[in-house]
């Protein structure tokens, strides 16, 4: 039947197929060719976790290792995009974005608008995000909400291998800057992925499962936790509808709204810290648009407002768990 590959392989395959299809697609970033621990051979590693492995040999001259200077090479990628290439720049950890905010927020995101549509910036910036890797406070944040906040950027957070491949292909073909975020803990997740090229459009949420009792909107890795929680809740007779927005910008508000108008109950699950998060954004939207449909106060399941702890026991407590999602669903279900 359908072929199963990992999330990581799906990303690799998307890059490979787009590089084959379009000679203007290039890959650049720290260690994307040679990589950590390389004995000096090209293509030894393929990025810090091996996501770009094999691309250097297949596409000579189009996979470039850069110096450890995010502000430099992200700026170069944005410039190259303005001049006809389609660069896919890997920024390793999203936590390092801070040093190139000007290039992203104030340049790439603004060009099309400020030049009256005459400039396009088809750059993709890939980065790992998320906690659970014992990588401490500087390598574990989510931060997709920060990019979602900026008009002119598109933000992609795939939760499974199928979406990762189709969304990355769409990201590369898109003429606007795209922040493409990969959860470290999902790299080994397996799923059905067509060998052929295909796209998943932006702004189209996936309804992961249907249910009439409670709507759960979950982002990235949290979609899988929501599925675990929903499987337990089903045994208690509670049918959850799970919505995976897939892109936080553009956000498919129609699908969320339509679902909440039917269920009357909303739980939003977001691994990032709670203030100015996707959880608060989606909750605010529903409170404004569907107040009359709500049968219970909206519940947000998020991390606490603290840096990601290094201590394993604390990090495990920090990340929203299926058990906490279950509790939140029970709370909205039993609200009187």
């Amino acid at each position, binding site marked *: *039947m*359908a072929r199963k590959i990992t999330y990581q392989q799906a990303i690799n395959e998307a890059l490979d197929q787009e590089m084959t299809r379009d000679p203007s697609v290039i890959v650049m970033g720290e260690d994307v060719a040679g990589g950590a621990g390389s004995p000096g051979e090209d293509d030894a590693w393929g990025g810090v976790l091996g996501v770009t492995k094999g691309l250097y040999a297949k596409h000579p001259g189009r996979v470039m290792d850069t110096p450890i200077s995010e502000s430099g090479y992200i700026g170069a990628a944005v410039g190259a995009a303005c001049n006809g290439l389609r660069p896919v720049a890997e920024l390793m950890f999203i936590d390092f974005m801070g040093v190139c905010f000007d290039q992203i927020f104030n340049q790439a995101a603004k060009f099309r608008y400020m030049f009256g549509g005459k400039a396009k910036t088809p750059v993709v910036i890939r980065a790992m995000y998320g906690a659970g890797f014992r990588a401490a406070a500087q390598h574990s944040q989510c931060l997709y909400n920060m990019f979602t906040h900026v008009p002119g950027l598109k933000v992609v957070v795939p939760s499974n291998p*199928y979406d990762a491949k*189709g969304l990355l292909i769409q990201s590369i073909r898109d003429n606007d800057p795209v922040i493409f975020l990969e959860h470290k803990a999902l790299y080994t997740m397996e799923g059905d992925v*067509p060998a*052929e*090229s*295909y*796209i*998943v*459009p932006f702004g*189209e949420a*996936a*309804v992961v499962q*249907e249910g009439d009792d409670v709507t759960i909107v979950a982002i990235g890795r949290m979609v899988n936790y929501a599925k675990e929680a929903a499987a337990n809740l*089903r045994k208690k007779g509670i049918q959850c509808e799970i919505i995976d927005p897939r892109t936080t910008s553009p956000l498919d508000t129609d699908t969320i709204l339509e679902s909440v108008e039917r269920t009357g109950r909303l739980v939003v699950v977001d691994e990032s810290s709670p203030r100015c998060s996707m959880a608060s954004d989606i909750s605010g939207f529903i409170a404004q648009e569907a107040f009359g449909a709500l049968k219970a106060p909206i519940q947000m399941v998020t991390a606490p407002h603290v840096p990601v702890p290094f201590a394993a026991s604390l990090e495990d407590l920090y990340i929203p768990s299926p058990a906490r999602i279950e509790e939140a669903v029970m709370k909205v279900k039993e609200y009187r």
Partner: protein
Amino acid sequence: MSAIFTVTMPKWGLSMQEGKVNLWLKEVGDKIEPGEEILEVESEKISGAVEAATTGVLRRQVAQADEVLPVGALLGVIADKDVDDALIDDLIARFQAEFVPPSADDADSGPQTQTVKVGNVEVRYLKLGEDVAGKDPLLLIHGFGGDLNNWLFNHAPLSESRAVYALDLPGHGSTTKVTGIDSLDGLAEVVVGFMDAVGLECAHLAGHSMGGGVSLAVAKRAPNKVKSLSLIASAGLGSEINGAYIDGFVSAASRNALKPVLAQLYSNESLVTRSMIDDMLKFKRLEGVDSALATLAGGLFAGGRQSAQLVAAAAGKPTLVIWGENDRVIPSSHATAIPGATVKVMPGQGHMVQLEAAGEVNKLIGEFIG
């Protein structure tokens, strides 16, 4: 006669692992005949009826409505009315104690689709059933925008007494997408090549919609390879076709656009589930599918008219024509186009009659090809 028969959760399609019991259509104590619908089950993809394979009385409803159970789980028990209750309870207890739900890995060990190269086209197909001496195999050919899963409820039942093949046509399913084919004859050329490649000297052909037209085109191109024709809501038998359906299907790029289009295929529109729409969108978003479908539609159905008329191709072949009376894609008035054919127009049914009235269609085809 004191045999006790179990009714178990069916497996519809290679990926089905569990199903939900929607409702019982028979009560405990009802007499059951083979082919009668006993209960309705819903998989992730589709809902359908579980049919009895035997004669008897429904003695137990083991599974309750809304229960979700793995493939192979015990749903009910059929036995003669004089079989002792204790024996039935024993059997249920034993079944439940010994039943091991199939794991996700088992899905990989069952029948698998295969691929074969026909010229530049890599054709995916699924063979079920064993080759039986004296029984020509059956080849199932799906319609426009479909794939071999359109035979979900037909493939396994029909393969009980012979080998049955189902394939994905060029531009469809997992077969090569971009081929430039824009005619029934072009599709038929690949089907004939496929039959040669898998060693099918002669087969019964059953085609749905455009696949019926392809079956006719195969009969025209290679009459010796065709034992009989079973044509379901077939193309090629008249000029009318619902152009809005074809154009809508080709152009739909979102769930909301596709849903009303797919609804036209069914008499029971609630069969068009979100999962069905999502799967169809996934297919349509594969590289090359857009242009493959547009090319085919342009060649076959431009302006809401069918370009190929193939009634004459059925001459000399035993032919069965099945149609849903309320077909909204190709009108059921085409059912009588072939002189001398056995014709069955099913009241209340739509275009996907082989899915919606699978039991009856299977029975008709089974009896027809013998």
